[in-house]
Each structure stands twice: as C-alpha cells, then as structure tokens.
C-alpha cells in the first residue's frame, strides 16, 4: 500500500486509489462537484485541483492515481486561487435564488462557497437564460439555470439505473440537461438523481416546497420496503416524517435506494393510522384505550384453549418482536398453531438486478429464523381448514405495517374473520376489517420509524436500527403488546393512555396518499 502525504499528513492508501480518495481517507476537505464515489470519473468541474510535488501544472485529484512517496496539497495559494475562480465560474450564470430554492441548506454551491470561495464576484454581464421548472417525469423537476452541468445525474442513469433517460444537450454555456427524445425520467431509482445533484437543479416533486431542510432532524433507519433492507436516513420534524434518503452501506445498497423505498414514509404519516384500540364487530365498534384493548385481547387468548388459537405472522416486524411473541405464544400459552403469511408468494424471488426485491417484507428471513429456532411450522392449508372447521376459535394476526404491499389483504381478512375471535395488530386502520362479523380487537402498533430493533435482510445480514421519531405515541411495539396480553405491566413513560389521537406535537399528517 503506497504511503503518500496529504497536506503534509502521511497516510497509507490502497493501491490504485485516486488522490481525492486519499483526501477523503485523510479527512481533509477538498472542493468538488462532479466526482461521486458511486459513479465514473468525469473530471469536468475542475475544482478538486491539487498541487502534486514535482508536477508543473495543477492536477485534478479525482483522475490522479496515487504513487508511492507522492506529496500533494490543496493549501497552496495557487490552488486556493484556482478553486476560488472555479467556484466563480460555476456561479456566474447561476441564478443565486437560494431564498426560494429547495436545496438551500444542503447545497454544494452554498457550502463550498462559504468554505472555499468567499470572493467578491466581478461578473457584471447578463446571465444566460434557460428554462426553469422543467418536468422531467413523474418524480423529478429540473431547473436548468441552477444546473452546474456536473453530469452526475447523466452518469447515474447511464451507469447505475442503466435507463439512459438523461443527457446533456447543446454545448458551451448553452449546455443543458434534458431527457432523450422526450422519454421521461421514469424509473424506480429516479430520485437518486435528486440526492446526487449537488445543487437545486433536480428536485423531488414529492418533497419540493414542503419543508426547509434546516427544520428537519434525521434518524438512521433500515428501509422496510423490501427484503433488501437498504440503510436509510429518515428526515422528520414534529409534524411527521417528510422524506427517506439512502445512507451509504457498501455491503447492501452502496449509495442508492429505490423510489418505492422512499415512499415508505407515507403510510407512517397517514391519517388512517389507527390511533386507539377498537373492539367490537360490524356496526358495533367501540373505541377504547390501547391498554384496555390489548388487555382484554390478552384475557380472551388466555381463556381460549391453546389448540383453538392460531397465530399468524407477517414478515414486517423486528427480530426482537418475533422473539417476544414466539416466547409468549409457544412457551407461555403453549400454542402450536403458528403460520407465516407471505404476501405475493409468486413474486417473492423477483429481483430487478439492482436493489428492489419482490419480497416486500423487511424481515421475512428473520421470521423464518424465528420459526426455525422455536421449532414451529404451519401450513397455510391447515390454517384455512382449521378456521373453516371451527377448530380455531381465536386468530391473532400480526398484520402488515404497510398494507399496500399485501394485495390479498381483503380476501385474507375475510378468511380470518370467520373465526369467532380475531385479534389484529396493525399500524393502519382498515376498511374491510370494519365490516367483519366476528368479535374483533384492533390494536395499534408502531411503524419502523417509531421503534428500535433489527431486521434480517435477504442475505441473512442482521441490521440494527434505532427509533427515530414518534408519530402515534399510543402505539405499542409487539413486545409491549404481548407483555400486556400476558397480564404484566410495561413502562408507559409519558404516553397518553386515553382514547383518541394525539392533540399536539404529533399531528398526523394528511399528506400523500399511497
């Protein structure tokens, strides 16, 4: 491994690294726009200029390979002056409309101007006019004047999504990003172009004009959209969750995530989230506190003979939740009849070749592991037969958090509700559940953003995540629910224990229907 000096600091870097990678490794700031670790090298922004000892001209760090004994710096006056001018060149035709730009607060131009620029501009000529608010497709808007032509988005559609919708048209300072032959930018990875756009040229139709980014907090999480389990950041404030962005994870998702995964924040905020317990049946619903609902459900379970109980799991809960549920049902209640509700069985093995998988559950693998370690198995046919044959009196379902990915939801609810009693744990309310005939308990549970735990992805990789924010404070985790069902106590902290939704702070947003 070659040893090189970066601004005097000696570091050892992997063979064939580029100088910019060495700067990143050394933790030394370097100005750049076009270079992105997940894309090929374009070398066009000309900002990552460094002085290499022994070379007369400045070099771009992104396309210069390290050599043993090399000494590079970006602190000399020549480099600083060049970078300043480089920024000036980027900005002379930029509209400088930060006050109305969605990128403000997380903009490469703003940040790097403050860090490396801070010059007095001398440009007094009229700026080049280009079109603004160009509709690129269902997800992305383009402002051609803000664009600095770094070509990251073009390289992304070329190299990563391989959909090739974008190109740079025309030349010189009339160059502009556009879609090829009117074909819209429409693929399941399109919003990555917004993430990698260093300026406010590409903005997400879903997020633009909604929030100022400096009002948002972020929490690391794992996307629940499919069994890939991409590492994500969830951006939220007291009004709810506003967007999901990818976090770098070389072992799973690299730098990217799919648009489907980005939409997972929506059901978290939905007005249709279940806000309190509901007990009853068709036309006879009673809204009760979560505690009352779950305790009375527990009582019903403990009354029922273990052989007359069927437990149905979906792959949407955490490993920790499965562990406590399995422990309760298997060891305390001695229930033998457990079933795995797999949505879309025929699509489970589909894969788009990049990230998105047909198994739309984040933790199918974790559920399978739990089945194996508790020696449980249950055939779906037995469940159906058991319900039809009145063998199962009480069915408890750990229902889907994201109901939209269960196309057979209504049909299955009809089937479950043929049992005498149905206990349904869910994040969101459900219309077909409201018209069932049997005695039913609806118990609100937390979504992935609201709880800590781990998912096991398709590779068998266990990925921990922390609780981000709370949207529905009364909602329980499965572990808490089974504690209460067992008749024990949990720590309620400051959670409201009455009936009804949150009054302040945790306003459940009515944005974005799925």
């Amino acid at each position, binding site marked *: 491994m070659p040893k090189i000096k970066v601004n005097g600091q000696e570091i050892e870097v992997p063979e064939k690294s580029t100088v910019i990678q060495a700067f990143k490794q050394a933790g030394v700031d370097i100005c750049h726009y076009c270079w992105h670790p997940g894309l090929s090298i374009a070398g066009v922004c000309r900002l990552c200029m460094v002085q290499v000892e022994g070379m007369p001209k*400045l070099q771009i760090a992104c396309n210069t390979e390290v050599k043993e004994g090399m000494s590079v710096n970006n602190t000399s006056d020549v480099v600083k002056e060049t970078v300043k001018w480089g920024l000036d060149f980027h900005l002379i035709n930029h509209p400088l409309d930060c006050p109305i730009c969605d990128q403000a607060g997380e903009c490469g131009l703003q940040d790097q101007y403050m860090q490396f620029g801070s010059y007095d501009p001398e440009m007094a000529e009229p700026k080049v006019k280009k079109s603004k608010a160009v509709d690129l497709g269902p997800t992305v808007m383009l402002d051609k004047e803000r664009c600095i032509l770094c070509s990251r988005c073009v390289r992304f559609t070329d190299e990563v999504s391989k959909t090739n919708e974008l190109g740079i048209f025309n030349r010189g300072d009339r160059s502009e990003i556009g879609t090829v032959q009117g074909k819209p930018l429409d693929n399941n990875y399109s919003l990555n172009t917004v993430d990698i756009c260093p300026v406010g040229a590409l903005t997400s139709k879903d997020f633009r004009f909604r929030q100022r980014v400096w009002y948002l907090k972020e929490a690391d999480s794992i996307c629940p959209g499919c069994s890939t389990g991409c590492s994500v950041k969830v951006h939220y404030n007291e009004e709810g969750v506003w967007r999901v962005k990818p976090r770098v994870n070389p072992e799973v998702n690299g730098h990217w995530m799919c648009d489907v995964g980005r939409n997972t924040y929506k059901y978290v905020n939905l007005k249709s989230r279940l806000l309190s317990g509901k007990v009853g049946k068709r036309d006879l619903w009673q809204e009760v506190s979560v505690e009352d609902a779950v305790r009375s459900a527990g009582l019903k379970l403990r009354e029922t003979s273990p052989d007359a109980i069927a437990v149905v799991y979906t792959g949407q809960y955490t490993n920790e939740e499965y562990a406590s549920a399995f422990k309760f049902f298997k060891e305390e209640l001695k229930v033998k009849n457990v079933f795995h509700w797999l949505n879309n069985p025929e699509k489970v093995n589909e894969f788009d070749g990049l990230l998105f998988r047909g198994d739309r559950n984040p933790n199918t693998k974790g559920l399978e592991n739990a089945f194996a370690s508790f020696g449980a198995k249950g055939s779906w046919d037995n469940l159906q037969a058991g319900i039809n044959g009145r063998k199962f009196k009480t069915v408890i379902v750990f229902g889907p958090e994201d109901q939209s990915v269960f196309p057979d939801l209504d049909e299955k609810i009809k089937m479950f509700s043929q049992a005498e009693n149905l206990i349904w744990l869910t994040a969101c309310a459900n219309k077909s559940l409201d018209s069932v005939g049997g005695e039913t308990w609806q118990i609100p549970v937390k979504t992935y953003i609201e709880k800590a735990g781990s998912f096991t992805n398709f590779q068998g990789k266990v990925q921990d995540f922390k609780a981000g924010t709370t949207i529905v404070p009364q909602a329980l985790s499965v572990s808490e629910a089974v504690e209460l069902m067992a008749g024990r106590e949990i720590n309620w902290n400051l959670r409201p224990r009455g009936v009804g939704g949150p009054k302040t702070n945790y306003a459940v947003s009515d944005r974005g229907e799925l």
Partner: protein
Amino acid sequence: MQVKLLSEHYDKPEFQTLGGYERHGGYVVLAKALKMDPNAIIEEVKASGLRGRGGAGFPTGTKWSFLPKNGEPRYLLCNADEGEPGTFKDRVMMEKAPHQLIEGMIMSSFAIGCKKSYIYIRGEYTDSLRIVGKAIQEAYKAGYLGKNILGSGFDHDMDVYSGAGAYICGEETGMISSLEGLKGQPKLKPPFPAVQGYLRKPTIVNNVETLAAVKYIIRDGAASYRKHGTEKSAGTKLFSVSGNVQRPGTYEVPLGLPLKVLINDICGGLKPGRKLKAVIPGGSSAPILTADEANKVTMDYEALAQMGSMLGSGAVIVIDDSNCMVDMLSTIMHFYHHESCGQCTPCREGTGWLNKITHRIAHGHGESKDIELIKKVSEQMMGKTICALSDAAAMPAISFVTKFRDEFETYIKKGQLGAGGAAHA
C-alpha cells in the same frame, strides 16, 4: 525561399487522380516502405525530426512509439477536421493530392501495425470528402488498399468520416468521441489515445500534413528531410497565409524562414500604403505578434515559443493598420464561445464571460477595469481544463489586451474607434 517538397505537383490538376499521381512517382515509395521493417520506418520518422503539423508539434515518431508493443488491434486516425480559424492547408492538400495523403497513411499504418484507418474530414469540406472518398476507391481498385497490398501480405482498410461542424472535433480525443458516434467532447486523460483511444483500442491521431510528409521522409531518407528547416524544427511546412497581403494562399517553406520574408516576398507584401500592425502566426488561438515582433521572428516552433506565441497549424493572419483590434478580439471570442463543448466549467463559463465583456466593449460600453478582468479571467482559464480549447480562447485574449492595451483603452474611453483603426460601424 519556397521549397516544394509536398506541394511539388500541386499545380497539376491531374495529380488529383490516381493515374496522374502515379505518373509523378505515386505509390512507388509505398512499395519501398512495405519491404522495410516497420520499426525501421518508425526509426526513420524519429530521425527525421518530424513534428505534428496539426498544432501541438509533438514529435511524430515518439508518438508512434507510445503504442503498446503487443499485437492488439489499433487505429490510425487522420485528423482532417481543420477548424482553426485561418487554417486551410489540409484542404488544399486533400483536394490537390488525395493520394499523397493515402499513400502516407498506408505506410504509416504499416509502420505501427494498424489494419484500419479513418480520415476524419471537416464537415464543411464537402469537396475534400468527395475527392478523398473517390481516391480511396481508386486505391482499392489498384490494390493499394485492401488485402495483401502489393503482395506484401499487409492488409489495410481505409475510410472517410465526415465531421458535423464542431471545432472541438479537431481535438484528438474529441475527434475520437465523434468517430465513436458520441457527442464531440474531449476525453479525460489519462488514459491517452495511444493506450486507449478509438473504441478503447490504441489509437494514433495525426494531421494530414504530418502523414503526407512521412512519404517524403521514406523516399529521401531522414537526413535529406532534415536538410530543410532548423535543428529542432526540421522539414518543410505548409503555411496558410490570409489577411491583408497581396497574395494570400498556401505556401510550402522550410521551417525557420523569417516571417517577414513569407509576408513580403512570398505573399507580395501588404497593399500599397498600408502599414503592418500585427500578425497571428499560428491560427486564431496563437498569441498575436506586434509588427515589431513579426519583423524579427522566424517561423519555427522554438522561435515562436520564445516570442510567447506558437506555430500552431501554420495559419498566418496578417493584420494591417486598417483593422480594429477590439473588433477582432470580440470576433475571436465569439468563435470560442460558440465552439466550447461545455463540459469543463472554466472553459464553458469563461468563454461566455470573455465573449460578453469583449462584445460590450466593442459596442461602446466598456469600462477601464474590463482590461484587467479579461486578463484575470483568461489566466484562470489556462491549463485548467481537459483539452486546450480553454487555453486557445484565453491566449489571444491576454495577448490582444496586453499588446494593444492603448488601443483598447482609447476605445473604451471614446466608446468606439480603436487607435488608428478604421471607423467602427
């Protein structure tokens, strides 16, 4: 003064056809070359001191020896995209003597072990395209191209490719992109074309004049070729002389000839009553020379470099005292702004900026600080980009406002008229 080595038969219309070309010794040298050891040809070209005639002046033999020594397929591309304002010698060569170029290319290809070559011809040169295309067909019919050329066992195919009107496609990697069917944009180096060029294969790009000259080096030997020119700038060069001279045109002279001889003796001097004001010695991107400098300089790579300019493509633009420098610079800036491919920021934005400043001055709205600004912007455009177009725009800008500062200042002050210049419309 003139040495007609390449251009010996340019005055004979029949030289354009295969028959005429053969009557004047055509394809005889090819037969000789094909019997030589390819490496010996490369060594001969190295020994001749031949330097690229397209503008950069890089030693041709050295360039060839950068190719990997394995049998990997490789390409020879002839750069006939002649776009540098003021240059028209390649066009003359292609139209007067297409077979001379083809013969030079076949033997060069043989030397570097290349089986396929292309001639990338400027899109506006419709006559050149037609004439060279026809000549290639003639050469195929006569067995100079195709399989087993002249019984040597060497196979070679050649084709023409038409540019679409972009100056940047004259830059070698821009040309490669264009030939690949991509947008004409220079490629990031490294890798250099000799390692990874056209279709990611090793590629050599040479100018029309360079490749044609190879024939004469092989015919007469390196030593004989070196008799022309200077120690470091060997051989002859075709200059395209334009502007305010009595007899503009393409002239072949030995390198090292004093510029004033070229202007006054060969091109018949200026029009009566006119005074020399400046000369652009190597195409519009070469820094301009004042009349004093022009009277001193000799036309070779070193002398011009010493004078702070360059030989470039050999386009000599003669400017007499009837011209306004402000007007001229703003025209040149318009050209580079129009031709910048737009990928590197300093060039994309800098050419536009310079164009706007110079146009503003030309339209009578200049300010005294503009001169310094032009210099600052230009300096920051130099050596900062993938290719040299940025430098090509910056160099004339700096040299114009430095060497003719008085004229720019007067123009800015009066809001029109250059010092001693013609009335500005």
